[in-house]
């Protein structure tokens, strides 16, 4: 099997699975887990978009 993902989809899947693990392991209640997981996911994706724009600015 040979899977070809784009940069963004690879980062998206990475953020999703890492956020699930962070949310479950770093908080105590289900509600806190969900909130922290969503927070981590937003930070991951925000970081990816920010890094993308920084690279675009460096290139131009």
């Amino acid at each position, binding site marked *: 099997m*040979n*899977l070809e*993902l784009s940069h963004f989809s*690879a980062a998206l899947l990475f953020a999703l*699975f890492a956020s699930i*693990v962070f949310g*479950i*392991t770093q908080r105590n209640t289900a509600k806190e887990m969900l909130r922290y997981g969503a927070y981590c996911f937003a930070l991951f994706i925000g970081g990816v978009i920010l890094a993308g724009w920084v690279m675009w600015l460096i290139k131009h």
Partner: protein
Amino acid sequence: MAGKSNVQDVGQGNRAPAPVPFTAMAVVAPAVGWLVPGLGHLVQKRWTRGLLLLISVFAMFLLGMAMQGKVYSPNTGDILDILGFVGDIGAGGLYIVSKAMGWGQGAIFRATADYGTKYIVVAGLLNIICAVDAYHIALGKKR
């Protein structure tokens, strides 16, 4: 009255936490959690958490394999390879099976294969976090 109750509050706040009993589960849960991702939670009847952790770590490891990622070996002598191995070995049974089957041994010549290598390393590191969490649940530090 108010002064007295304040003194009592401060006294309770300074009290050392009660010692946590060390049970067999505190050894078994992280061990099986390391061998099979999420199993440390499943043996403690944390079904939803265990399944989500199992799916997440398995998915990351298998996606890394599908992207032709590299599985590191222990004795290459290169410091970066050793660090990669430390990450990979965290995946426990997944790492053992992949080495036994000879998966992840090909040369990396595409960007996605490099992503795959990182997926595999991070799957191992996340599994270590899961095993530590299972240990904390077994000790009663976490519900």
